[in-house]
């Protein structure tokens, strides 16, 4: 019996074997371990590591709709803001949730962030059904509209919620409502691992194949049987959910939230990281966010004042000459007969 089982595994290739053969997965594991090692060995400050995870997190979230399905959401910061405000408002006003977020080595904060993510996801799902009918630039503009709508809504409503304590739309969490940064790290780390797994799973699943078909030619995809509307909404909702979670934990880490979380700059950060790394892959946003973070940091240190101008020029050069990004470029080549696309996807 056992022998027969082994035999079957041998001929068809076991799942484990398949995953071990996938260098992408190994690279992803290395990245995750790298973050852990950097954290445990104290190679970087906790804030630096949190920023790296934040960048990687938002890039991987947007990747689900932009990288796989080809829908560039220019207003995706809206979900960052929705998640951030949802989290902060929940722990500010609801005592049990404030207590929960300090439990379980960060698991509590993770669970509250899931609630915040669900709020962002609900908005994404209901709005997605409408805006995902639009294509290309029109979709991008519609999501910007959504972002501004949410921004002005929060600016108007938040000050009314607690006029004595809130200064405009800014909320600073009181000392009994914040979470120790070690625990926030754990929650963010768990979120990032799940995000990587979800991205990887989508890339390898029929769902991912369908999304890629939508990116390539949506009409052809529909006629070939891809339920395009449903797939787009699911992808957009997932992207909204995870962006919301990252926004929640990012706000918790900063001890509060303000309306700058809705800034278009955050949307552009996400898009640029995906473009630098390469669309439609899992490694793209991971590598892209690391490069972007390093560049951002280097330029800020060495050329303060003009750092964003230089960054803008670099981004323009990438988009002009390497529109497929780093991974997109590499996957076209062979090294000693091995197609890099087999290795990098």
């Amino acid at each position, binding site marked *: 019996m056992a022998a027969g089982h082994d035999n079957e595994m041998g001929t068809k290739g076991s799942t484990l074997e398949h995953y071990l053969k996938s260098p992408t997965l190994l690279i992803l594991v290395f990245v995750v371990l790298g973050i852990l090692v950097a954290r445990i060995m104290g190679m970087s400050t906790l804030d630096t590591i949190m920023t790296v995870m934040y960048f990687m997190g938002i890039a991987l979230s947007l990747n689900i709709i932009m990288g796989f399905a080809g829908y560039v959401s220019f207003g995706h910061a809206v979900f960052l803001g929705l998640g951030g405000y949802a989290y902060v408002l929940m722990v500010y006003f609801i005592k049990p949730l404030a207590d929960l977020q300090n439990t379980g080595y960060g698991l509590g904060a993770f669970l509250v962030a899931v609630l915040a993510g669900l709020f962002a996801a609900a908005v994404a799902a209901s709005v997605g059904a409408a805006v995902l009918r639009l294509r290309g630039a029109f979709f991008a503009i519609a999501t910007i509209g959504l972002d501004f709508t949410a921004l002005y809504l929060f600016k108007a409503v938040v000050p009314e919620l607690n006029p004595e304590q809130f200064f405009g739309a800014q909320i600073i969490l009181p000392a009994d409502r914040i979470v120790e940064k070690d625990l926030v790290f754990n929650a963010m780390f768990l979120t990032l691992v799940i995000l990587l797994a979800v991205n990887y799973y989508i890339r390898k699943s029929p769902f991912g*194949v*369908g999304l890629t078909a939508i990116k390539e030619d949506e009409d052809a995809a*529909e006629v070939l*049987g891809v339920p395009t509307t449903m797939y787009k909404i699911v992808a957009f909702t997932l992207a909204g959910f995870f962006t919301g979670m990252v926004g929640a934990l990012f706000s918790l880490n900063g001890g509060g939230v303000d309306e700058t979380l809705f800034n278009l700059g955050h949307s552009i950060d996400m898009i640029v990281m995906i473009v630098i790394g390469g669309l439609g892959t899992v490694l793209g946003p991971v590598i892209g966010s690391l490069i972007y973070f390093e560049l951002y940091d280097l330029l800020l240190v060495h050329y303060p004042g003009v750092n964003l101008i230089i960054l803008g020029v670099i981004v323009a050069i990438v988009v002009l000459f390497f529109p497929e990004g780093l991974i997109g470029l590499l996957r076209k080549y062979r090294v000693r007969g091995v197609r890099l696309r087999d290795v990098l996807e």
Partner: protein
Amino acid sequence: MEEILVVDGVTKRFGGLVANNKVSFSMRRGEILGLIGPNGAGKTTLFNVITGVYRPDEGRVIFKGEDITGKPPHVITRKGIAKTHQIVKPFNDMTVLENAMVGALFGKRAHQITIGQAKEIARRSLELVGLADKADEFAVKLTLRQKKMLELARALSAEPELLLLDEVLAGLNPKEIEEALEIIKKVKVERDLSIIMIEHVMHAVMNIADRIVVLHFGWKIAEGTPEEVANNPEVITAYLGDPRYALRFVKRKGGGE
């Protein structure tokens, strides 16, 4: 014999333009039906109505006894109707094999097969149309003939019972047309298919089709065997123009077999 498809009084308007006007016909399982007519006769529109891309203003489409009128395209594909596009629409950034896999993953057995099984189905389709050696190429690199065959392979991977071919021969040279016709005949037998083909390459469709439906300005003006249609005075004036020309097709059919 069992009727696989019934088109019943289908009318489709675009503003003031009536692209299909009360078009009715039915086809038996295993038939090859030629759909011909001058440019703008409403042939592609009719395909789009059958596959659910357009919802007809009037009339019904019955597939295997079930009313599928107005169902979304992906649902109809899953029921067993596949289509190739007149203007080829390969997924350029995917390999040839991956293109065909999309057909398999979302076709008749959507959500029931694994990626691995889809790969096998796709490989067999590519073999049938002679693209097996191009499996790992990116679709963008194919020639027009190969892209047309990829459209066919993608449709076949959906494992359809009814295959709609929209000008699959257009733009091919005579030798390629011969090869393509052989492939179509072969897959029809091997996959037990019913086929409707829109075609402008007249001698080809007259050769391969069991029956022909002729559209003109949205109306069905004739239906019958290739001989009957080619001898139909209305068809000759409306479409073929010169009666002698029309007769030549029929003769070629006799000579070819």
